[in-house]
C-alpha cells in the first residue's frame, strides 16, 4: 500500500507551503484543519471519556481502598501492590494463567500451522473444509464452554461414555484439580485453532510460488521446502500469531467463568477471574484496579515485544 505510506509520512511543510495558507493569522487553521478537528471531536470526546478517564481513574484507585459504599476512596499508597506480591491466591492465578497461556500458544502454533498447510493444498472441497474449520471462531465462548462442560461431564459426557464403551472408567476431568486446567486448554485450542489457521493461511498465500519452483528445480523435497522457504518467510506471521495468542490467553475469562468458576479448589483461577471476583464479589475496587494495572503491565511488555520482533516493515500501515 504505497499510497497510504506516503500519506502517513506527508511532511507538514507541504501543507504550510500551500499558497492559500501563506500569510495572515489564520494560516495554520485552514478550512481543512478546522474541518478535520471538528470531524474528530466526537471520537476524541469518546476516547477521553471511555479510555482516558478510566485509565487515569483506575491508576488513581489502585493507590486507594474503596468498597463503593463509603463516600470516598481512602489513600493507602502502595499497599495494594505490596499486598498483591504477598497474596498467594493472586500469585497462584498468575502461575496458572501463564501455564494456560503457554499450553494454548503451543497448541495453536503447531495445530494452526499444520491446519493451514492442509488448507493451502489444491484439493477438491477445500473451501468446504475452510468453512468448517473457521466455525468455532464465530461461536461464542460461553456456548463453547457450556457444550464442552457437557462433553467433559464425568457421568454422561461424550468422552466418558465413549471410554466406558471400551471398558475404561474415565477421570473426572473438570472436577479433577490435576486435569481441569488441561481441559480448559483443550477447549480453548478447539475454539482458536481454526481462527489462527486462517491467519497462517493468509501468510502462506502471501509467499511467492517462484521460491518453491526454484527450489524444486534445485531438487529440494517437500520437507526441505518447508524448512528453508515456508518457515523463514512465515516468520512474521508466526510471531504475530504467538503474541496475539499470548495477549488473548492472558485475558482469558469467560471460559473459566462458565466451565469451572476457578475451581476445583482454585485450580483454574486465572488473573482476570481473580480481578472480577475482587471487584464484583468483594467490591475491593482499589485492590482490583491494582490487579488490572499489573495485568496491563504484562500485556504492555508483551506488546512491546511484539513491536520489537516485528520490526519496521510490519509497522507500515
Amino acid at each position: 500500500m504505497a499510497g497510504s505510506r506516503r500519506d502517513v509520512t506527508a511532511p507538514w511543510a507541504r501543507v504550510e507551503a500551500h499558497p492559500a495558507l501563506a500569510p495572515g493569522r489564520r494560516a495554520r487553521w485552514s478550512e481543512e484543519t478546522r474541518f478535520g478537528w471538528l470531524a474528530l471531536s466526537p471520537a476524541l470526546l469518546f476516547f477521553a471519556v471511555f479510555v482516558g478517564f478510566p485509565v487515569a481513574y483506575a491508576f488513581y484507585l489502585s493507590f486507594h481502598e474503596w468498597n463503593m459504599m463509603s463516600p470516598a476512596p481512602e489513600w493507602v499508597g502502595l499497599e495494594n501492590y505490596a499486598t498483591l506480591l504477598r497474596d498467594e491466591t493472586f500469585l497462584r492465578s498468575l502461575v496458572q494463567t501463564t501455564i494456560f497461556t503457554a499450553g494454548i500458544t503451543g497448541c495453536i502454533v503447531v495445530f494452526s500451522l499444520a491446519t493451514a498447510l492442509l488448507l493451502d493444498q489444491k484439493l477438491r472441497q477445500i473451501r468446504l473444509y475452510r468453512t468448517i474449520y473457521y466455525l468455532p471462531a464465530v461461536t461464542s465462548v460461553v456456548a463453547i464452554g457450556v457444550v464442552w462442560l457437557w462433553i467433559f461431564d464425568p457421568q454422561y459426557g461424550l468422552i466418558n461414555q465413549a471410554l466406558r464403551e471400551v471398558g475404561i472408567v474415565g477421570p473426572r476431568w473438570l472436577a479433577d484439580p490435576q486435569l481441569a486446567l488441561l481441559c480448559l486448554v483443550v477447549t480453548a485450542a478447539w475454539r482458536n485453532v481454526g481462527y489462527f489457521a486462517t491467519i497462517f493461511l493468509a501468510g502462506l498465500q502471501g509467499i511467492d510460488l517462484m521460491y518453491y519452483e526454484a527450489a524444486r528445480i534445485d531438487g529440494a523435497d517437500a520437507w526441505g521446502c518447508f524448512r528453508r522457504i515456508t518457515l523463514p518467510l512465515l516468520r512474521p506471521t508466526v510471531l504475530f500469531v504467538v503474541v496475539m495468542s499470548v495477549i488473548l490467553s492472558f485475558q482469558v475469562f469467560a471460559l473459566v467463568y462458565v466451565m469451572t468458576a476457578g475451581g476445583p479448589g482454585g485450580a483454574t483461577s486465572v488473573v482476570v477471574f481473580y480481578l472480577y471476583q475482587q471487584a464484583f464479589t468483594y467490591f475491593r475496587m482499589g485492590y482490583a484496579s491494582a490487579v488490572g494495572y499489573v495485568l496491563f503491565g504484562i500485556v504492555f511488555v508483551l506488546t512491546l515485544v511484539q513491536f520489537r520482533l516485528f520490526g519496521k516493515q510490519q509497522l507500515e500501515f
Partner: protein
Amino acid sequence: MSRRPATLTLALHALLVGGGVLTLLPYVWMVSSSFKPSAEIYSAAVQLIPTRPIVDNYVVALTREPVGRAILNSLVMAGGETVLVVVTSVFTAYPFARLRFRGRDAVFLLVLGTMMIPTQVTMIPTFILMRWLGWIDTYQGLIVPRMMTPLGIFLIRQFLLTLPRELEEAARIDGCGRLRALVSVLVPHMGPAVATLAIFTFTASWNEFFWPLIVVQSSEMRTIQLLIAALKQTEAVEWGVVMAVVTLSVFPTVAVYLALQRYFQKGVVMSGLKG
C-alpha cells in the same frame, strides 16, 4: 504444480476429514442433546443421534426460560452497537484518510494505541461511571461504552485509502461540502468494508460476555450469553434444555457466517495482518 501421488492426496483428505469431524463433533453433540429425552441424555452408552427426537427441550426453553427476551436484548445490543460503530467509524476514518492537518497522525496513533489497553483495566472506572449516570441495567449502558472501536476506524481508513481521490474531488469542485461528498459520494463505494465491519461487530457483540456480565443486574436485561451462563449455574442442570438454548444462541451467528463467509475471511486478514 507437479502432480501429487494418489496416496498423498488420500492422506491429505483423511487428515482434513479427521480435523473436520473433530470440529463438528461438539456441534453434533450439542444439537443431538437438545433433541433427546432425558432418558437418552442420562445414559451410560454413547448415543450420537437420538433414537426418538423430541422438541420438548425447546418448548421448555421458550416457555419457562426467558429465552425470547434474552434474544431480543442481544439483538438490541448487537444491532445498536453495529449501527453506531459503522457510523462513527466512517466519520472518524474520513479525516484520517482524506484530510491533511497538523496533529492528524499523532491522534491516529493515539487511537490505535488504545487497542493495547486491556478492557479489564478500564472496566472498573467505566462501571463506576455507568452507576453515576444511572445507566446500570440499561441498553445505553450496554451499548454506549462500546459504540466506537479503534479497529473499526482503522479498517475503514485503510479502505478509504484505496478509493481514488478523484471520486470526491469532482463533487467538491461542483461546490459540494465535505460532509455531503463523504455521505453521497464515498459511502456508496464503501459497501464491502462496511459489510465486513458490520458483520464483525455484530458477531463480536452477540458473543460478548464480560461487559454485559458487569452492567446487567436484573434477569430481564440478560443477554442470551448471560442467560446460558445462568442456566448452567442452577443446582440441577437440565442438559437437554441448556443445549436447546445454546443451539438457539449459536444459530444466528453460524447462519450469518455461512451466508456471508467471504466478508469474514476478509475481516480476519484485514484485522489480523497489516491492512
